[in-house]
């Protein structure tokens, strides 16, 4: 019998140093216990509803629908959550779990800063210490979020190693965890890393599709024809897809960051350009060279700028249940501007990747078709960077 746990098809597993194994086992046991504990679930639901502002709206985007002239488009508004993104769903779950486990300190990686801000927020609320590791490059791209984390009482550690982006922040947080385990929980921000993280994070993010499924049935009396979400590690996407996976008629479409294009080296589209490998605790698809050296990926979006993808997405790709499409920087920036003008909603540049593909797909679909696009976060944090992309020299 195989000892390996947390597999999604051939993907997943627990490829981590022995030093962390007992901590991971402890986490798995605690999660298995608390996920069915009525008191834990009551507390978490209370936090989600009365602190984070759930359920989030399923907004019928009439103007966007009219402009694109095809499928009826609904937006799942995760940008309206407290802290401005879907990240809070997972963080409140993990922080509460860590607290129950007797941990006093949360550590986290962050790319765009959304997960770092959410973790710092939960730590402030639950009286826990918080240290966030962020690639030095990203601390520059997302200076405002660095300030927000500090304001919330967290320490932000700029990571200078490697490419100084998200993957290096993950590596550094893992290193930190191996050096201080007993009082510290690694609050991992995406559906990646070693088991049980991909499952825990998915379960906490599955609230997105649990709500949207009920909301669309209420609004339309039927399921959607397609669900779109952006994919870096893939947490908002798996949350958006999860409760539709058994519904074969619902197309699930993950939108990857193609950067300057999947035919260039400046891309982060893992499923489209990567190969199977083992990294950051999991077997999955990774952007890498022929010798397995992890590639220095690129995207305008700091949150999608990651060379791997969660193992459940890798599996959904393998079995053909979900599609993964590349979206370039230019397409995402156009969508960022388009949604702002048509609906008065400024999406995170990450979420704009999903909007961009919706702009391509919706016009090809009949008007009686329905599409749900997850707006995973709000775009205020990106305004200065997009302005610079367009040649305007503004700084926060």
């Amino acid at each position, binding site marked *: 019998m*195989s*000892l*390996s*746990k947390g597999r999604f098809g051939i993907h997943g*597993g*627990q*490829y*981590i*140093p*022995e*030093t*962390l*194994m*007992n*901590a991971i086992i402890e986490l798995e046991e605690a999660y298995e216990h608390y996920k069915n504990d009525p008191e834990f679930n009551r507390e978490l639901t209370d936090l989600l509803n009365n602190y984070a502002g759930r359920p989030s709206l399923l907004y019928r985007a009439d103007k966007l629908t009219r402009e694109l002239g095809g499928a009826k488009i609904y937006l799942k508004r995760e940008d309206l959550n407290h802290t401005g993104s879907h990240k809070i769903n997972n963080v409140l779950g993990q922080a509460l779990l860590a607290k129950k486990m007797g941990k006093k300190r949360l550590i986290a990686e962050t790319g765009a800063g959304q997960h770092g801000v959410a973790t710092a927020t939960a730590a402030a609320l639950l009286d826990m210490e918080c240290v966030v590791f962020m690639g030095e490059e990203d601390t520059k791209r997302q200076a405002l979020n660095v300030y927000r984390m500090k304001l919330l009482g967290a320490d932000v550690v700029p990571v200078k*190693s*490697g490419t100084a982006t998200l*993957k*290096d922040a993950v*590596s550094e947080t*893992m*290193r930190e965890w*191996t*050096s*201080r*385990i007993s009082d510290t929980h690694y609050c991992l921000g995406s559906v990646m890393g070693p088991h049980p993280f991909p499952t825990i994070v998915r379960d906490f993010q599955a609230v997105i599709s649990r709500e949207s499924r009920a909301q669309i049935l209420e609004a339309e009396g039927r399921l959607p024809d397609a669900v779109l979400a952006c994919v870096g590690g893939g947490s908002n996407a798996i949350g958006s897809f999860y409760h539709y996976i058994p519904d074969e008629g619902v197309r699930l479409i993950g939108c990857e960051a193609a950067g300057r294009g999947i035919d260039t080296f400046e891309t982060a589209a893992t499923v489209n350009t990567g*190969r199977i*490998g*083992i*990294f*950051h*605790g999991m077997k999955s698809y*990774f952007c*890498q060279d*022929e*010798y*397995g*050296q*992890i590639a220095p990926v690129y995207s305008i979006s700091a949150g999608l700028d990651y060379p791997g993808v969660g193992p459940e997405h890798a599996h959904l790709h393998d079995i053909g249940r979900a599609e993964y499409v590349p979206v370039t920087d230019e397409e995402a920036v156009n969508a960022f501007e388009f949604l702002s003008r048509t609906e008065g909603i400024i999406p995170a540049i990450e979420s704009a990747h999903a909007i961009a593909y919706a702009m391509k797909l919706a016009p090809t679909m009949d008007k009686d078709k329905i599409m749900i696009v997850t707006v995973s976060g709000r775009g205020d944090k990106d305004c200065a960077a997009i302005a610079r992309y367009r040649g305007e020299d503004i700084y926060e």
Partner: protein
Amino acid sequence: MSDIRTAFENGKAFIPFITCGDPDLETTAKVVRAAAENGADLIELGIPFSDPTAEGPVIQAANIRALSGGVTTDKIFEFVKELRKDVKVPFVFMTYANVVFSYGSERFMARCCETGVGGIILPDLPFEEKEEFLGVAKQYGIDLISLIAPTSADRISMIAKEADGFIYVVSSLGVTGTRSEITTNIGDIVKVIRENTSVPCAVGFGISNPEQAKHMAELSDGAIVGSAIIKIIEKYGKDAAPYVGEFVKSMKDAVAKA
């Protein structure tokens, strides 16, 4: 079975770690020969990885220097094959799971066998995942080296019972790098290991001077030193070999007294 056991037949073992290709393979060849001539009992050869998550800053930097210099897994196999003509000390590779997986597990083990590398240390491959490589490793007579950490507790006996070659006892929490003090009760860990296996065990992580090496060798079958050697290579670059030789001699002399 590999030749690793012979490394523990000359009293307590001293095991240096050297990153292949840091700063280039010509230097690595000189450093390995200097280590062998000065009493290294087993040499850990690092195949650099872009994102070495178990390493501290010193070995991370060595990985970057080596990869920037253009070293690859294929070049390292050719290099080891050449080295093997005159260096008889047992070798093990130390790298990360993706380097082996990406090369093709069977192809990797076959080349280890062909070039005379007796074992592989993969810090990101815990007991539960070793089946990933164990079948092909055994087929080619390559030992997958098990690691035991200060946090292993109830896992020690399970790991020790199935260990091959030698057991790498991680002295401290955290990543590789020199430490002024090692607080883990190594003696207790080794006691449980001994109850479960006759496979020798050596202690690594944080050892930087002869006193620490001697102390760790008293508690186990040998001492492993990485970052302290990499620092010498970082300092002296292409001229590092005699300095590494001198350091290895002082460390081997110290463990021999244990």
